[in-house]
């Protein structure tokens, strides 16, 4: 074994999931998807690999730098290994499912691969689970997506959830509308990204007033919304975004009571392809984000206006850091001579059974060696109840 130890080295950011984590993650994914299905989201399962030009079109353009590519020897075309599933689901919705009634609710779960991990989330292979709701402009759809993400995470025991709502189109539109010089635009964007109030003030004039006001209007949802609504001189499209937020917040409070909601009107990193209200999910004490989602246009790249859509993606690497810990399941050892007789009865009663393949003298010792919690004592008989090992 030692001779080959070096061969077990995996490339950066890839890992073997072992028992019990592998089982635990599979359970969590199934529980999340089960919760999605309860609200009528139907599962789709796109392929791991598809042609690059489809995978990286429209909202997929943001994943281009993260996508592994390979040449398809059959068609001689370049293929991409998906770094995100949302793009694929949007493609399905606007191609094969155009005749399905809107709003169309779809969910998915599966592995994705990215060229490099981040320092905080070094994993390059990440299982994603998520939902998309396509063909609705309604604020109810925004609220449903956020609430469903939070409630699903709640079912797998992620504690102290918090959602940060962003209006990623607001700040760029303000900056565009202010007619700043190119250098000032860069300075404004950097200052907002760093949340540096002093640097925003240093811009002076109307820019300092407007951008400073939306920067200050961050934090708990209630006060943040009030502060945003009190800002004078916003352009109409900015005002519409804030009205949307005002519409979503009470719906969200109703659908996900107890969820901590914050608003960050200047967040835009990672939301470059979002067209409206977006959000990021955090859990207190869990590093990195658990998931994110928001408004986008499905199929706009095909010419035409595209369909309004929203949805969310959960990243299982982060989610598992916050989920309820795996509990060791009870396993019952069956000595070889009575395995066939006792097995069906115990499995029907919900036991996990481990059958001995060869007869052994000491059933308890063998059960302990195989890390079982219980065993059937052959001296008592095949019909007896499992006894604890210790």
């Amino acid at each position, binding site marked *: 074994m030692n001779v080959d130890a070096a061969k077990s080295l995996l490339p950066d950011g890839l*890992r073997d999931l072992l028992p019990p984590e592998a089982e635990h993650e599979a359970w969590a994914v199934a529980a999340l998807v089960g919760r999605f299905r309860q609200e009528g989201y139907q599962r789709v399962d796109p392929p791991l690999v598809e042609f690059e030009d489809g995978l990286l079109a429209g909202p997929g353009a943001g994943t281009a730098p993260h996508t592994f590519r390979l040449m398809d020897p059959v068609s001689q075309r370049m293929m991409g290994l998906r770094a995100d599933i949302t793009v694929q689901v949007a493609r399905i919705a606007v191609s094969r499912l155009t005749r399905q009634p809107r709003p169309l609710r779809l969910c998915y779960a599966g592995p994705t691969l990215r060229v490099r991990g*981040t*320092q*905080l989330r*070094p994993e390059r292979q990440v299982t994603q689970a998520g939902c998309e709701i396509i063909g609705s402009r309604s604020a109810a759809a925004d609220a449903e997506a956020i609430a469903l993400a939070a409630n699903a995470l709640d079912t797998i025991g992620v*504690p*102290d959830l*918090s959602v*940060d709502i962003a209006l990623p189109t607001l700040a760029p539109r303000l900056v565009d509308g202010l007619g700043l010089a190119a250098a000032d635009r860069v300075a404004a964007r950097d200052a907002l990204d*760093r*949340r*540096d*109030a*002093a*640097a925003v003030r240093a811009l002076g004039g109307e820019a300092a007033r407007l951008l400073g006001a939306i920067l200050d209007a961050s*934090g*708990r949802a209630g006060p943040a919304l009030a502060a945003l609504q009190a800002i004078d001189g916003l352009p109409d499209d900015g005002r519409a975004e804030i009205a949307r937020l005002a519409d979503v917040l009470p719906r969200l409070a109703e659908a996900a009571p107890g969820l*901590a909601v*914050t608003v*960050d009107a200047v967040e835009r*990193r*990672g939301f470059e392809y979002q067209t409206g209200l977006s959000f*990021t999910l*955090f*859990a*207190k*004490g*869990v*590093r*990195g*984000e658990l998931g994110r989602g928001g408004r986008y246009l499905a199929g706009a790249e095909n010419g035409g206006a595209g369909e309004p859509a929203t949805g969310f993606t959960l990243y299982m690497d982060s989610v598992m*850091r*916050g989920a309820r810990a795996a509990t060791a399941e009870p396993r019952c050892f069956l000595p070889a001579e009575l395995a066939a007789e006792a097995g069906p009865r115990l499995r029907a009663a919900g036991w996990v059974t481990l059958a001995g393949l060869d007869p052994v003298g000491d059933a308890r010792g063998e059960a302990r060696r195989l890390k079982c919690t219980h065993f059937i004592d052959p001296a008592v008989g095949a019909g007896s109840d499992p006894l604890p090992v210790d």
Partner: protein
Amino acid sequence: MSQAANDIMDEADESRANEPLVLAVPKGRILKELRPVLDSVGIEPEAAFDDPNSRALRFATNRPEVEIVRVRSFDVATFVAFGAAHLGVAGNDVLMEFDYPEIYAPVDLGIGYCRLAVAEPESLSAGDDPSRWSHIRIATKYPNITRRHFARRGVQAECIKLNGAMELAPNMGLCRRIVDLVSTGGTLKANGLVEIETLAEVTSRLIVNRTALKTRPEQMGQWIERFAEASRAA
């Protein structure tokens, strides 16, 4: 990251939820200038913090909900990015070098003024024409900033990473130019170097962890406001 390291981090994640806030501060020069700021926001570290013989790295303060850790200036950003510390004090040189998306830098504390500059030997600078450069070799603690800066001008910068005593490099024949922090310029002068270009003006910032800000908005917001007031007052 190794599995073991991940497990340790994950354990820490679980137990961290209701812990006190941790403020990471840099050792050395900045720390002296930071003390009055800490005074005015009302954080008083325990006595061991000022004891040069103390080997402790983690200190209690007069506030039960705030702890201080003292680490190297580059490590402040790492601690805060990973959420091991919730707040920190770091120069924008460090922030530019790492560019962590998990860090916000809401307050310019107005301390630790200096600049990040390119310097070369006096003798070289007389006949040097930077517009003709296509490739240069530079000794620096800031390879990322340096590479980015010169790439924008179409110059390939080959960086030799040093952790200190940059000024020695040109005289010892390691390379001819350096990128380093300059405050008075005294060290450069003493080593026969002249500043030829400023990359960035540097001051110390209050930095905060993104997740902490989102999940504990009141508490974090209060501290940001206090530091902002202290810097306005100064």
